[in-house]
């Protein structure tokens, strides 16, 4: 089944990319743009068919490789 891992910079951690994107959007005259944060989306095809197991596996992958828990937090969804 398919798992989606979303990785975002933690609250309070500087996000230079989000900051720059927000700035650029204002430059393009988009009004009312507040905070912008940018992170990653990783889509995984897993052989695992049991949802609970698949989620556990994806979370393990996130902790081990996909997310840097010092500065990022992650979320797993099953599609």
């Amino acid at each position, binding site marked *: 089944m398919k798992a989606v891992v979303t990785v975002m910079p933690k609250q309070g951690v500087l996000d230079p990319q989000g900051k720059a*994107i927000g700035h650029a959007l204002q*430059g393009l005259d988009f009004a009312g743009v507040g905070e912008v944060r940018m992170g990653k989306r990783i889509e995984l095809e897993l052989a695992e068919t049991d949802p609970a197991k698949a989620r556990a596996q994806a979370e393990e992958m996130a902790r081990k490789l996909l997310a840097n828990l010092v500065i990022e937090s992650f979320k797993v969804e099953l599609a």
Partner: protein
Amino acid sequence: MKAGIVVFPGINRERDMAIALELATGRKPRMIWHKESDLTGLDLVVVPGGFSYGDYLRCGAMAAQSPVMAAIRAHAERGGHVLGVCNGFQILAEAGLLPGALLRNASLRFLSMDCHLRVERSDTAYTRHYQKGQVFRSPMAHGDGNYFADDDTLDRLEGEGRVIFRYATPEGEITAAANRNGSARNIAGIASENLRVLGLMPHPEDLVDPLMGGTDGKPLFDGLAAALAA
């Protein structure tokens, strides 16, 4: 030749480019701040290398949206010459002045080293001081130089002779090993239909002085100076 160099925030090879151009033309190029919009009187507009807007989001994406790009597009439509090097190539592609896109290097690592470029045609303002098939050395330094376009586009580019430089071995063979960043068909540089807008990833401007290890890049600028002499 009157040349101008566009400077976006985060661009950092504008000085190198200015040195190479002055060497070839004898005059200092005009430095164009990204908020300007008047390019009148310029024969050549150069978008140099660097990390415009930090290369955040996508290399060249934010610069491609800035005011001066409209002026550059108009300059190109007037038949003016536009040279984009490294980040400049990425910006021209993002702005749609050149087809395709530059993806992350296949190795996922920044590549800073010399490469060898095979000149695919010598009848352009940029390559007239090289021979067709000639191989020259050039430094390269980028994290996103992996040229991509769909097959139709690639076929069209080849058909129209718009592939100007390919990564090659010093002997001129087009091999996978010579193609460090993984570009489609070893493409290092392409041109617009009228051959006046050129984008390439490597940095010939950093090899124009024997002291720096060679002058392989100098013919590109000498050729331009001769072609656009006015």
